[in-house]
């Protein structure tokens, strides 16, 4: 089926070439990083994780959100999602690949990566993250590819596939839970030390992921012959609305506990992010943008008039995606490190090579996504 | 055969690429065991020279883990001699392979291997031989 990705019009090849160009630049920067070490990043002794691990966290959520299509379709036989499920699963595949690449570019000694398998250490959450992410990747590749094959041949998917599909539902929840556990179990890091973290991760992911998927599908509808049932859009919009509402609610829960208790360790991270400390204020505009985007998106999503309107819905989806990114791709990691456990403020901001490596990794994800979507679209088109 | 005009040249290119190491080596000088210089005071290595030639990495690997992970540093060989399990302080000491460039590096260079040991383990400055 892969050969279908080799047939396309000029715009298709132009898009592929653009992605390859970004991948090339990112790869060049990565070679520079391999040669010079992580000294070329904005990371420091106090802020030892940054943009890369932030993107890993955000993309795990995007990957997990495929379950928001898989679950209604396979468990509740919700037919409107029928043709769209495959796009959710392929988005998950590309997102997990992106996650794994972000882990690799973050390592100081990437050639020793296999030590994680050669010396398995079950006490480490990072070990389990590796296990669940790889498992989820294989599940989605196998499921997506086999289902597509069945569509191509015009037969129902094999029975053994059902088992894998059901397995993929809790597995999706597990990947984001384990990723939250990377942060939520560290003494002294009060910003993360929160049993709500995994739950709020899932809530924001189940809003941001379907938002991204819908936005991508709107683009696909424009450039290819994809028909998205109106009912499917509306149902997804409702899922996003509920998930985003829960997410914003959980932000409120955290704020209550932190500020009513006046727990100094808990307050410091939030204070730094939303109000700054002395001259350390670089995150403040981002955070208030997050608040603005989160609340406006919430209003647009809750009001049926704006939710049912294509233009306002699109705006709301973009807002959810961007707000989710500020919250998880940026603030989550930085807020956990600044200030450090003994109240020293060392700020972090990514450097240009770091940003280009990040863009390059995302370009690889988009390339995989493009190829998989091209195959899926061609197969679906032929079968109808 | 369908598309034979594409498949056969493709196959030829593939076979050519896969066999690259073989034909690129044609006409080059054959492998010769490099001449190693040993101006050591010591005449005996930790283990028999024959075994060391083939397995020194295994010995170093054992030493590495025993020292770092098991806190064991003393090695007594069958002849009853004691050694400090240390690459820098034993192997590269002035009595033995202090001349890394003419001992370790010669083989490693000829065989095109570059062990990363020296990224951390310090090579002592070549001792000045007094006339």
């Amino acid at each position, binding site marked *: 089926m892969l050969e279908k990705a080799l047939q396309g019009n000029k715009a298709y090849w132009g898009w592929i070439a653009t992605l390859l160009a970004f991948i090339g630049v990112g790869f060049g920067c990565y070679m520079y990083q391999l040669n010079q070490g992580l000294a070329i990043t904005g990371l420091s002794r106090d802020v*030892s*994780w940054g943009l890369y691990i932030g993107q890993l966290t955000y993309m795990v959520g995007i990957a997990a959100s495929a379950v928001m299509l898989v679950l209604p379709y396979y468990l509740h036989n919700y037919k409107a999602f029928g043709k769209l499920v495959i796009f959710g699963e392929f988005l998950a595949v590309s997102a997990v690949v992106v996650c794994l690449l972000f882990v690799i570019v973050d390592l*100081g000694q990437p050639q*020793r990566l296999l030590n994680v398998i050669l010396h398995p250490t079950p006490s*480490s959450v*990072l070990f389990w993250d590796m296990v669940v992410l790889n498992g989820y990747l294989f599940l989605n590749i196998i499921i997506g590819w086999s289902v597509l094959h069945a569509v191509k041949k015009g037969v129902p998917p094999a029975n053994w596939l059902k088992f894998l599909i059901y397995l993929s539902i809790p597995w999706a929840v597990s990947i984001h839970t384990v990723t939250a556990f990377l942060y939520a179990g560290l003494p002294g890091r009060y910003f993360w030390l929160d049993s709500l973290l995994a739950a709020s991760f899932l809530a924001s992911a189940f809003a941001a992921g379907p938002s991204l998927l819908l936005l991508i599908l709107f683009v696909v509808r424009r450039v290819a012959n994809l028909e998205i049932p109106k009912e499917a859009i509306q149902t997804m919009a409702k899922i996003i609305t509920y998930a985003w509402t829960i997410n914003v609610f959980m932000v409120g829960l955290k704020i209550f506990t932190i500020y009513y208790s006046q727990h100094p360790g808990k307050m410091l991270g939030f204070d730094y992010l939303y109000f700054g400390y002395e001259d350390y204020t670089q995150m403040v505009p981002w955070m208030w943008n997050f608040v603005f985007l989160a609340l406006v998106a919430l209003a647009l999503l809750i009001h049926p008039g704006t939710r049912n309107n294509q233009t306002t819905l699109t705006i709301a989806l973009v807002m959810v995606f961007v707000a989710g990114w500020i919250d998880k791709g940026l603030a989550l990691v930085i807020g956990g490190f600044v200030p450090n456990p003994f109240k020293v403020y060392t700020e972090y901001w990514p450097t240009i090579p770091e940003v280009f490596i990040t863009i390059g990794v995302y370009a690889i994800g988009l390339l995989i996504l493009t190829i998989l979507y091209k195959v899926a679209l061609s197969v679906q088109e032929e079968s109808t | 055969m369908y598309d034979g005009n594409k498949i056969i040249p493709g196959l030829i290119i593939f076979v050519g690429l896969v066999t690259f190491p073989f034909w690129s080596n044609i006409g080059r000088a054959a492998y010769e065991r490099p001449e190693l210089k040993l101006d050591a005071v010591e005449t005996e290595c930790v283990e028999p020279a024959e075994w060391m030639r083939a397995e020194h990495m295994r010995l170093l690997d054992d030493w590495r883990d025993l020292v770092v992970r098991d*806190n064991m540093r003393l*090695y007594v060989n069958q002849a009853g001699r004691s050694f400090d399990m240390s690459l*820098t302080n034993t192997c590269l000491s002035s009595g033995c392979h202090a001349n890394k460039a003419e001992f370790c590096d010669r083989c490693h260079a000829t065989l095109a291997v570059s062990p990363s040991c020296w990224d*951390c383990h310090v090579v002592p400055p070549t001792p000045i031989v007094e006339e």
Partner: protein
Amino acid sequence: MALNRRSFLKAAGLTTLAGLGGHAAMELLAPGALDAAQPAKIGAFPEALIGKRWAMVIDSTKFTSMRLSQKCIDACHTAHNVPNIPGKQEVKWLWTDSFQRVFPDQRNEFLPVDIKHQPFLVLCNHCDNPPCVRVCPTGATFRREDGIVMMDMHRCIGCRYCMVGCPYGARSFNFRDPRPFIANINHRYTTRMMGVVEKCTFCEDRLARGLMPVCVEASEGALIFGDLGNQDSKVRKILRERFSLRRYPSLGTEPHVFYLI
């Protein structure tokens, strides 16, 4: 399960016998793993200092100025080839900080002026319940039975999760090749390579040779090192007699560096 060569050597070391009998046993358990060459004995040096639970006591009343602290820091950093890298990507094993940063639990506006401005030495706390060990995905950092939290630089993949886990900021990452930043390389000790994490090791290599840690030797008696497992040790005695603080005990990490105030 096959027994590998190192496990055998280790076992042989513990029983201090790997003669003919040991060899035969190894052949039985893991045929061919030993080849011809195997040691007669492996183990610790006879002069090694053995402890049940190593700990350090810092007599802060003797570190009133930077002079003695700096002497200890210099001794440590020179002996261990710790690079002198300026800026926020620095590497350090032993350094000083103010009272309120060393003891964030003990915040108090009305501290005596001399304590407020006094430099306190800080290093890895060699915790009993170390978060860095818990989070390491490869076992590159681990806790020895005698309480020393060790780093295996050969195994570290540079994920820096241990730095995230450590609430004391005791760990440094080699963001760049450290060698150009070492003024005088100590040829008896290793440097580190780019991309691995390092920290204080309580000078375990010196203990193995019967020596006290470098900083302790340089401290003119202000640093006391010893075995908490031994009732009669100097550290036990001094902790019995004088009031001491530990860093952030509320986190449950059980640090083993004690500060006499």
